[in-house]
C-alpha cells in the first residue's frame, strides 16, 4: 500500500480506481487482522459502496477532494452515523450513534473512504491498547509487543499499511506514542485546531484529534482537511487553516531547534535511546538547523498535573454512562441507583474505574483547591515554560518515548504505564502542537522523534518533520513481520 497522496494521485490519473484501492485495503486488513486485531468494527460494504460512488463522481469529472478514494481507519471514539462506536468500552458495546463526528464528516467531504473503526484503550485511557474492553492490538513490527496507545489500533493498521491514513486522538500522548511505536507519523494539533464534536470525551480540556499517517505529507493533507472552527464546538478556535503542504521543506537552513535540557538528562540513562536521539539531532544539524538548549523547568510536574486534571474531567465526562438512555444496561432490583451501579460496575474496565475514583476524589470539596486548582496553576506555569522556550527557538525536538515498544503485559503497574507519557504530557498540558516522526530503531524496533511547535504553528512543525523524514527515510521502512500489499 502506497501513501495516501500517492493513492489519490494515481486514482486521479485513472491508473487505478477507488474501488480497486478499497478492495486491496480490505484484503490487506483481512490478512493482517487475525494477528494484529487493530479493528473493533470493519465496514467493507460501506467502503466498497463509497469507493464506487467516488469513482462515479471522478468519471463525471467532479473534484472529490484532497483524499478522494483514500482508505482511512477511524479510531472508535469518533461517532460514525449508523456504525457502532464503542470508545473501546463494553459499556458502549451496542452504541450506534445517530450522528457523525465533525472530523468524520470532514474526512468524508474530502473523499476519504472509511474501512473500519480501530481498537483503543478504553475511553482513550492507556498507552498500550491493552486496556481495550474487547481485546488487545499488536504491533506490526513485532506482534509480541504492544502498538502503544491509546490510538493503538490506528497506529497498528497504518504501520502494517492496511490503510495509509488513520485518525486518532491525543490527550497526553495517545497519538504520538503509538505513532512512535509503529513507525508512522502522528500529529497532535494545537488544542482548538480540530473540532471535538462527536469525539467521545476523555478529558475535555486536553483531547485533540489528529492524523496518523504513512508520511508527513499525508499528515499535512489530513490536518488541513479536518482542521478549522466548528460552530458545534465552542473550544474550536476560529483561525484560518493554512495549506499545510506548502510548508513542507527539504532543508532546515535558518531554523532554530530547541533541545530540552531536562529531557536530555532524563533519556541519558538509556544508552541506546540516548544515542538514537543524539543521531536524530545530528541529522537536523546536517539539514542546516541550529540547535539551542532550552529549559522546561516545570515539565517534571507534568505527570502529577496530568493525573489530576485528566481524571477529574473524565470522572464527570463518563458520568453519563449509566444505562438509562443508550449503551449497555444491567438492571437493578427496582432501584435506579442500583441499575447505575451495576451497569457501571459491569461496563467499565479497571483502569477507567481507577481514574474515575481518582478524579472524583480530586474534585471533592475540601480537596478541590489542593488538587485541581493547584494542578491548573502548574499548567499555567508549564505554558509559560514553553513561551519562554519558543522565544529562543522555532520548534523543539525531543524524545517522543522513553523506550521502544514493550511486550504485552510488561507494564502491569499502572504508574509504570503512566510514565510512558512523560515526554508527551507537557505539550498536551500547554495545549501546543506536537508530533512524532519515525527516527530509527532500537533492537530493530521503531522509535519516534517528537517535534513541538507554538500554538497554531503546525505548518512550521510539519515543515521541519518533512525535511527530517525526507533525509532520513525511516518512514519508508515497512514493518518486517506483518502486513503485505
Amino acid at each position: 500500500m502506497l501513501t495516501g497522496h500517492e493513492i489519490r494521485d494515481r486514482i486521479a490519473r485513472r491508473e487505478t480506481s477507488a474501488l480497486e484501492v478499497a478492495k486491496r485495503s480490505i484484503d490487506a486488513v483481512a490478512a493482517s487482522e487475525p494477528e494484529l486485531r487493530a479493528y473493533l468494527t470493519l465496514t467493507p460494504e460501506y467502503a466498497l459502496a463509497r469507493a464506487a460512488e467516488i469513482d462515479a463522481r471522478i468519471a463525471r469529472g467532479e473534484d472529490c477532494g484532497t483524499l478522494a478514494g483514500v482508505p482511512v481507519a477511524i479510531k472508535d471514539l469518533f461517532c460514525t452515523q449508523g456504525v457502532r462506536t464503542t470508545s473501546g468500552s463494553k459499556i458502549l458495546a451496542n452504541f450506534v450513534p445517530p450522528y457523525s463526528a465533525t472530523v468524520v464528516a470532514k474526512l468524508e467531504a474530502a473523499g476519504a473512504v472509511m474501512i473500519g473503526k480501530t481498537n483503543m484503550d478504553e475511553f482513550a485511557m492507556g498507552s498500550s491498547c491493552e486496556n481495550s474492553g474487547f481485546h488487545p492490538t499488536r504491533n506490526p513490527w513485532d506482534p509480541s509487543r504492544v502498538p502503544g496507545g491509546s490510538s493503538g489500533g490506528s497506529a497498528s493498521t497504518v504501520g502494517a499499511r492496511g490503510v495509509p491514513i488513520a485518525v486518532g486522538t491525543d490527550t497526553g500522548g495517545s497519538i504520538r506514542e503509538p505513532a512512535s511505536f509503529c513507525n508512522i507519523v502522528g500529529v497532535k494539533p494545537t488544542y482548538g485546531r480540530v473540532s471535538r464534536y462527536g469525539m467521545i470525551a476523555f478529558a475535555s480540556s486536553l483531547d485533540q484529534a489528529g492524523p496518523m499517517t504513512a508520511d508527513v505529507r499525508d499528515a499535512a493533507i489530513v490536518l488541513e482537511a479536518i482542521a478549522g472552527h466548528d460552530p458545534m464546538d465552542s473550544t474550536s478556535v476560529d483561525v484560518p487553516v493554512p495549506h499545510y503542504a506548502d510548508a513542507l521543506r527539504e532543508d532546515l537552513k535558518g531554523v532554530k531547534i530547541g533541545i530540552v535540557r531536562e529531557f536530555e538528562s532524563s533519556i541519558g540513562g538509556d544508552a541506546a535511546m540516548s544515542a538514537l536521539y543524539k543521531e536524530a539531532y545530528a541529522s537536523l544539524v546536517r539539514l542546516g538547523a541550529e540547535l539551542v538548549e532550552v529549559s522546561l523547568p516545570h515539565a517534571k510536574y507534568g505527570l502529577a498535573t496530568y493525573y489530576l486534571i485528566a481524571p477529574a474531567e473524565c470522572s464527570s465526562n463518563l458520568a453519563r454512562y449509566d444505562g438509562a438512555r443508550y449503551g449497555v444496561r444491567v438492571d437493578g432490583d427496582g432501584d435506579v441507583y442500583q441499575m447505575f451501579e451495576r451497569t457501571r460496575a459491569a461496563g467499565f474496565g479497571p483502569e477507567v474505574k481507577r481514574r474515575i475514583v481518582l478524579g472524583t476524589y480530586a474534585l471533592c470539596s475540601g480537596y478541590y483547591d489542593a488538587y485541581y486548582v493547584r494542578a491548573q496553576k502548574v499548567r499555567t506555569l508549564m505554558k509559560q515554560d514553553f513561551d519562554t522556550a519558543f522565544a529562543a527557538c522555532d520548534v523543539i525536538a525531543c524524545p517522543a518515548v522513553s523506550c521502544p515498544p514493550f511486550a504485552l503485559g510488561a507494564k502491569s503497574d499502572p504508574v509504570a504505564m503512566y510514565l510512558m507519557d512523560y515526554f508527551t504530557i507537557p505539550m498536551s498540558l500547554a495545549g501546543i502542537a506536537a508530533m512524532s516522526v519515525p527516527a530509527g530503531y532500537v533492537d530493530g524496533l521503531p522509535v519516534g522523534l517528537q517535534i513541538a511547535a507554538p500554538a497554531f504553528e503546525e505548518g512550521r512543525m510539519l515543515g521541519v518533520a518533512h525535511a527530517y523524514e525526507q533525509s532520513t527515510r525511516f518512514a519508508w521502512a515497512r514493518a518486517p513481520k506483518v502486513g503485505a500489499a
Partner: protein
Amino acid sequence: MKNSSTTVTEAEAHDFEPVIGLEVHVELKTKSKMFCGCRNEFGAEPNTWVCPVCLGMPGSLPVINRVAVEYLCKAGFALGCDVAPFSKFDRKNYFYPDMPKNYQISQYDMPLTTGGGITLPSGKRIRLNRIHLEEDTGKNLHAGGAMSGSDYTLIDYNRAGVPLMEIVSEPDISSSDEAEAYLAELKAILSYIGVSDVKMHEGSLRCDANVSVRPRGTTALGTKTEVKNMNSFRSVGRAINREIARQSERLAAGERIVQETRGWDEGKGATYSMRSKEEAHDYRYFPEPDLVPLALEADMLARWRAELPELPDARRKRFAQQFGLSEYDAQVLTAERSDADFYEATAAACDDPKQAANWLMGDVRRALQSAGLTTLAQSPMTAAQLGELIRLVKTGAITGKAGKEVCDLLVAQGGDPKVIVAERGLGAVTDTAEIATMVDQAIAANQKSVDAYKSGKANAFDFIVGQVMKVSRGKANVEIVRALIKERLG
C-alpha cells in the same frame, strides 16, 4: 393574607422570628434551548424536542445560547444587579436519571449577576445575592406518582436543557406575606421585560424556601431547612408558615433543628424530611471545560440595558402622577405589562384617563368574568374600540346603560362600537320633540307624583324621570329628560 395552616401558638410565635430566603428558578422564554438548537416550548409530546446535545449523547458538546445570556442580563438590570462582564460556567455533578449527562451545566463562583434587590409594595427592600444561568433537567414520570414503590419511571427530556435562571435572595424576608409579595413583584418584573412566562403551574417559575427561626431580638441565624415542591405562591406561603411553626414548636420544646431538605405536601399541609445534610450531595463543581468563559462587551451590555421597558414600579408611580389614579388603581392596572399597555392606549383613545381606569376595573372586568375569560389579552377587544365606547358614553351618544351592553359585546367579540350601537338600535334618543312627547305622557299618567313634587318632595321628580327612561327603554338622554320635566313643572 392570613394563612390557616399555622398551628403555632401565639406565645411561640412571639418568642421566635423567622428568617427566610428564597431560591427562585425561572425558565427563560428563548426560542431554543440553553446549549443546543432544540425548541424550547412547554407541552409537546414527550421526547420529541431532543437532540444528541440535550440527551447528553457521547461526543456531543454544548454551545451557549446568546439570547439566554441576554435575557438573564436584562433580568439582572431590571432587578438592579451588577452584571459581570466576565463569568464562566461550571459543572454540578450528581447522578439523577432526569439529568442526561449526570451533571448540570451551571454557574458556581462567577455568576452572571450579583447584588440587586426587589422593593415590596410595603417599601421593604429584599436584597438579591445572585442570579446565575443553568440548564433545566428532564422530567421523571413515575408510575404511581412517587419514585419509591413505582413499577417503572418514564423520562421526558423535552425540558432537559431549557435555559433556567436561578435567582437567590438574601435572607431578608421575615414572613410568608413578604415572601408572596416578593414573588408577585418578581413575577411582574420578569413578565414585564418578557424574558419568561413565569407560570408556576407550568413550572416556568419554581420556588424553594430557606427557612430558619431564631429567638426574637437575637441576631445569630438559626439552623435552616430548605423547603421544596410548592406549586403556587399561596402554597409557598403556607409551607413557610408551617415550617416556621414546626421549627418554633421544636425549639420551644427544647429540641434542635436538623439542617435538611424538606418537601411540602400540599394535601396534608405539612413538610416532610427529604434528605439530611449528611446525605447532601458533594456536587464537585469545576469549570466546564467544554465552554470558554463568557466575556460580554460593555457596549452590548449597555444596549441590553437601554432596551429595557419601563418597569412595574416606575409605571405605577407614573400612572398615579400622570393620570391622577389612586395607588390601588395604579397597582392593579400595572400588574401585567399588557394590561398597562392596554390601559394607556385606551386612555389616549378616549382622552379621559380616569374614565378609562373606571371602565377597565369595573365594566370590562365584569364583562370578562361573564364571558368566561381570565385576562384582558384573551379578549378580541382592542384599546381603540374600548376608547371609542367610552367616548360615545361621554358625549351622550349612548347612555351609560347601553354602554354596558356594548361593553359586554366588545369583550366577547370585539367590533366597532358605533356599528354595534347602530345595528342594535342602542343610540340615545336626543330628539327634544320625541322626548317631550314621552315627558308629557309621563306627567299626565302620574298626577300624584306631580302633586307630590309640587308640595316639595324632591324624590318624586326622580320617579317621573325614571318613568320617562322606562318608556324610552333607557335610551332617552337623561339631561334632556330632566330639563323638560323641570320646564313643564316650573
